[in-house]
């Protein structure tokens, strides 16, 4: 499985749309693809990929996603979510040999999503809480690989310089697609991020 994170220092560059289009292109080309929405503060992939039914599920608070998974893991709940409860199969044209699954951030814009995101924020601000975020994200990635055996995992990452964006682009990703527009502040910020990504230590899997 190859993990590709899509990142932009500033918003409004078409990053989420590019993730959705790339995912569909790869799936239509015969690849098994999972798409992961880690833009937790402004999630949108389920709008781009899921169509009306998925948006209705989200509006009704019925769409489980990354936030729910992280909350159960970090709160050490006895009832862990299975990844099959999160991954929504996205329809492809008849005859397509690939597959596409979406793991949304959760039920945004329903209030229950923001409540769950608030809980996640509190868990991460507890002493030692933030230190568990890498473990939980890698667990999610490893679970996706084990359960769905995808060729590609595409990650829609948060803008700006954030913990989650940093982990998505440095810990999870084999490759990063970095988008920017040409405003000076966007170029300067993007350069800072790219310089940082060249320096960060990479995960060295042992015996895998």
């Amino acid at each position, binding site marked *: 499985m190859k993990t590709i994170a899509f990142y932009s220092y500033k918003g409004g560059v078409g990053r989420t749309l590019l993730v959705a289009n790339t995912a569909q292109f790869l799936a239509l080309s015969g690849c098994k693809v999972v798409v992961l929405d880690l833009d937790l503060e402004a999630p949108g992939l389920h709008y781009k990929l899921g169509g009306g039914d998925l948006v209705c599920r989200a509006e009704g608070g019925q769409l489980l996603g990354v936030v729910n998974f992280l909350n159960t893991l970090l709160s050490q709940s006895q009832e862990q979510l299975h990844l099959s409860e999160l991954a929504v199969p996205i329809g492809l044209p008849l005859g397509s040999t690939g597959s596409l699954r979406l793991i949304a951030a959760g039920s945004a814009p329903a209030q229950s999503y923001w409540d769950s995101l608030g809980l996640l924020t509190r868990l991460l601000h507890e002493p030692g809480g933030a230190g568990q975020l890498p473990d939980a994200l890698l667990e999610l990635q490893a679970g996706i690989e084990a359960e769905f055996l995808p060729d590609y995992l595409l990650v829609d990452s948060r803008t700006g*310089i954030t913990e989650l964006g940093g982990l998505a682009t440095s810990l999870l990703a084999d490759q990063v697609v970095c988008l920017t527009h040409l405003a000076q502040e966007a170029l300067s910020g993007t350069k800072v991020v790219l310089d940082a990504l060249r320096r960060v230590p*990479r995960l060295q899997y042992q015996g895998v």
Partner: protein
Amino acid sequence: MTESLRSSATEDELDILVSVAIRRAEVLAEEGDPGTPAAWREVRLYEELLSRITAPTTVEGGVARVGAVYAALAAGDRLDAEELAEKYRAEGLTDERRARLDTILTEDFTRRGRRYRYLWQTGRLAALDDWKNKSRTETTRVFPLAA
């Protein structure tokens, strides 16, 4: 109790403080109280102070050092626990205490393996610990956690 008072406390006084702190941490843990990690950090503080005034080869010194590592693990500060364990091994713990340190570190690793079962199954938990250690020593931190 202020830091200076804690630092000047005698072994007997620290024994009392650590006993009370352990009981408190255990009660909070049983209740699932969010203050549990902080309570274990207090235990660790007293155990570390005890370790400074006791020789590693004595019973008291060995118990304090193992207790400090245990408390760090219980607080969720695993990297700190490993650093402490390395330091105490270098100080010259007895074989029995060394074995005890190995046991509690292994038990913690196994416990994490039950929680992060996919990482455990693919052998990535150890790789993650290594990555965290390397990340912790990075001097330039553009990303708050990742760099």
